[in-house]
């Protein structure tokens, strides 16, 4: 049990982070698409489509942070020191965004609303970019000595992490566009369909570029992806991705409304699984494993009891809230 607990928790944390990425991903994506949509009624529709759910979406990020603190305190300590700058910037960007959410609907005059629109848009870009940068910095490896981060405060900034930052902006933009295909209709929906096509292309190029770059990043990654027999299994990941890309573009062409969003989630899931394959069993690559970073079994067991009851309940009522606000968002429906 004491060996299994950290693995269970590693999977649970990974699931929470993935839930965050796709859920806040599409609502950050809504902000990322702001420059492409100028009319303030259209922008209202975009924001309305996520207004009742964004707060819940962002809670997964708190679960990622709080959960890591509880069950992998060493990883929490090392990662947050190492990623100090991008994470701080991300939090500040989310501050801008969260307040802009409420304020842009209540602006007393046009100029004020433009300002909050910019805060919403800027916050979305910076938050998405910083998350991507943090991911890149994490993947490229973190210098550790003893039980602490041993690198400098600019180590996170490399061409690779900038690329992963840009990749996540494109990816979130894609999720946002697909979400909005689902939630809008008419001309507006047509524009998001067009944008989704372009962003999907960009996202796929980024996935390919990041994957190739990772092969040059370290020998273990190469061994995992290129050496037989492991490579045979690993090769499935890009093949499935190509298949998904095919059905995604077909679904766009057939003007399907929900399918593009689901396939876009598929892109994320595959990229995420690919990362998992590369990093397993590291909690903080390249040196701290899941077992090294784990809190004592008593701690992990205590939270697991609660989580195993509460997470299903959370999924149920979160699902209920989404169902409640199902359907298209109408133009001119006010703040809702």
């Amino acid at each position: 049990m004491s060996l299994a607990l950290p693995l269970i928790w590693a999977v649970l944390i990974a699931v929470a982070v993935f839930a965050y990425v796709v859920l806040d991903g599409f609502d950050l994506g809504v902000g990322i698409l702001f420059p492409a949509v100028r009319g303030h009624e259209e922008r209202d529709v975009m924001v309305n489509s996520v207004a009742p759910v964004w707060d819940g979406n962002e809670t997964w990020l708190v679960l990622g942070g709080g959960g890591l603190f509880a069950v992998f305190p060493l990883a929490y300590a090392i990662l947050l020191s190492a990623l100090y700058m991008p994470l701080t910037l991300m939090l500040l960007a989310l501050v801008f965004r969260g307040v802009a959410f409420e304020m842009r609907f209540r602006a007393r005059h046009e100029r004020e609303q433009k300002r909050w629109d910019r805060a919403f848009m800027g916050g979305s870009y910076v938050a998405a970019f910083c998350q991507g940068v943090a991911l890149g910095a994490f993947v490229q490896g973190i210098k550790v000595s003893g039980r602490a981060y041993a690198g400098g405060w600019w180590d996170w900034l490399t061409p690779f992490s900038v690329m992963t930052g840009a990749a996540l902006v494109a990816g979130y933009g894609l999720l946002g566009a697909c979400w909005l295909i689902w939630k809008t209709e008419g001309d507006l929906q047509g524009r998001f369909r067009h944008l989704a096509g372009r962003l999907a292309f960009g996202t796929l190029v980024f996935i390919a570029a990041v994957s190739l770059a990772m092969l040059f990043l370290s020998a273990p990654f190469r061994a995992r992806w290129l050496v037989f027999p492991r490579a045979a299994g690993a090769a499935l990941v890009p093949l499935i991705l190509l298949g998904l890309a095919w059905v995604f573009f077909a679904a766009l062409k057939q003007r399907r409304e929900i399918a593009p969003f689901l396939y876009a989630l598929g892109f994320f899931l595959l990229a995420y699984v690919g990362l998992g394959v590369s990093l397993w069993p590291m909690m903080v690559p390249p040196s701290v494993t899941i077992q090294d970073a784990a809190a004592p079994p008593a701690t992990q067991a205590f939270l697991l009891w609660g989580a195993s009851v509460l997470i299903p309940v959370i999924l149920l009522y979160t699902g209920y809230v989404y169902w409640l606000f199902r359907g298209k968002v109408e133009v001119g429906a006010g703040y809702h």
Partner: protein
Amino acid sequence: MAGLHLPSALDLARSQFAFVVVWHFLYPAFTIGLASFLAVLEALWLATKKALFLDTFQYWLRIFAVVFAMGVVSGLVMSYQFGTNWSVFSDKVGPVIGPFLGYEVLTAFFLEAGFLGVMLFGLKRVGPKLHFMATCLVAIGTLVSTFWILAANSWMQTPDGFGRTADGRFFPTSWVKALFNPSFPYRYAHTVVAAYLTTALVVGAVGAFHVLKDRTNPRARLMFSMALWMAVIIGPLQIVLGDLHGVNSYHYQPTKVAALEGQFDTEQGASSLIFGWPDARAGETRFALGVPKLASLYLAHDPNAVVKGLKAYPRSRWPTNIPLVFFAFRAMVGLGLLIVLLGVTGLVLRWRGRLYDARLFQRFAVAMGPAGFLAVTAGWIVTEAGRQPFTVYGLLRTADSVGPVAAPAVAASLLAFVVVYVVVFGSGMAFTVHLFGQTPGPHDPGPPGNEPIRTAAITPVLAASSAPDRFGAGDAHAVDTRS
């Protein structure tokens, strides 16, 4: 040594934590009480079907939406502060208090976030009964959240139910003892009541402000009256809880209590100081003006009891900023007494039937609007600065808790937090004050788009003029949505 003395990474990290946590707590201090107030108003509406309650509910719901959003994002920052700046603390203490934060997210944050959407936007979709349930769940969520976070904080003050590894890391031995550690029940009660009082003072001030403008406005009268009932009932209760909490601290955190009393020497029949200037270097409180035997009376419940002063403990265990603890305590108690005065005067005026005519008293109530925020902040300063120089009282020093991040990085992020908070939250709060200034009217539209369910027709013209959040009557679609 000559030359410029730059702040260390430790000083900067402490300043940063103090800044973001004090700012953050202003929001929950208000929303904990406001969520419960909203639940009560909605219950009254459902029970009586009187529009008065729904209108007042909608008025405060609009304010709640803005303040809650600021609380969420400033709270998100807090959940990362432990790791970014206090990573050694996180590594050492995470196994004990980490699960409390985990449970806070699982039992409270998701609940609040999930049902907040229904509360703000769902009245039309789910109907009044389910909507009321959502309001109650959000209110319960705020109290559950307070429970977990205060358990974690209390554990840092009065740790229990743990063991330590050879390299000083904490591990749990009894969850019941760790969770219900000695100071937790007192701190929880004291904090929840403080939050309720903070809300009552704000609601009372807004009510008083509008009663001053129009003494017949029934919504303003309702707010004013309900808030004063709250103040007169829980104001004195808070003093009792504060005293119990103080006695508890005296037993478990004697250096904190000695610092807040400004008492350096151990005394029999210790006096309580009304004023003084504690000078840690000299080891005495200058210009002391006090009431003899009072401190012994309220700490040991015996006027002749011996109360230990700071000198009974090594200097290395003294709080690092004794004057701060000393004056913050006086500010908190002083404000608490003013709050009781407000409540009692309100009761007397009510009894004489002059509550809505006493303009001077109403001005006093307006002036007391921010008193809750100030008192809560002062209280937290007492308890946190009083815990120094430790993060885990008596066991883990603050200096040994800080992470390896270089001083320039901490300074840069501190500066960024200050600028962003002042600009973003500053304008959010300015807007909240603007909302306070809006007259609570009949058919209050609530958060834009959350039209209450009514049979009475609302004319577009009226709707436009009662929708001041939009660009005004000229905005065509603000009219459309409400026609």
